[in-house]
């Protein structure tokens, strides 16, 4: 299991390959399903062009909240492993923002765990987006529904 906040750009597929190569050998042959969600910065939101985005978090609380969310996911579903990476700081359009990968024996648990963690990230973990638009910076007031 790995949970990380990243202050610099990252490549989700590279991170996945690296993490996958280090998966628990003793569970080899049990990984039947991997559910992955990659969130990427879009260049438009709420009717405006967005040229950049800053992700603020609450150092200490954000890490703690994500850790608890992952523990909760393991309690709710039979998961084998979780990788969660979330950007903080300044992003540009098309930059990866979040990666959630969940390994399980079967797809139902993998999907459910991945969705749960995404909803936790979106709705409860302390992150805030500030967008740069032609009219200046603005705080994002609400998320899209899951």
């Amino acid at each position, binding site marked *: 299991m790995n949970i990380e906040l990243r202050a610099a750009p990252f490549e989700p597929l590279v991170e996945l390959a690296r993490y996958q190569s280090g998966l628990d050998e003793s569970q080899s042959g049990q990984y039947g399903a991997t559910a992955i969600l990659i*969130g990427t910065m879009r260049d438009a939101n709420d009717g405006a062009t967005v040229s950049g985005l800053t*992700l*603020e*978090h*609450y150092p*200490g*609380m954000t890490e*703690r909240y994500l850790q608890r969310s992952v523990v909760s996911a393991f309690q709710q579903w039979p998961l084998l492993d979780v990788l969660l990476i*979330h950007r903080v700081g300044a992003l540009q359009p098309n930059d990866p*923002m*979040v990666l959630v990968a969940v390994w399980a024996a079967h797809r139902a648990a993998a999907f459910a765990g991945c969705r749960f963690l*995404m909803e936790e*990230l*979106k*709705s*409860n*973990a*302390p*992150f*805030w*987006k*500030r967008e740069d638009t032609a009219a200046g910076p603005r*705080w*994002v*007031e*609400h*998320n899209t529904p899951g």
Partner: protein
Amino acid sequence: MAVQIKYFASLRDRLGRAGDRLEVVDGLTVAGVWATLWPDTPLPPNTLTAVNLDYADLAQLVADGDEVAFFPPVTGG
């Protein structure tokens, strides 16, 4: 007896600072912390509150050394 207060995101911008320090008395709640610091500013609707890095409600009592945070709805992911 004192607590540290933190503000984040749009709330910090609106208040014009990132935090405060407040000497508190026994029986003070999270709501009381806000009312003491910002007597003329009602807590904005939907503001979230945390004590010592966990979500807390406005009725929670604060104690010496606590970190109390106020912030707007989250928009991560």
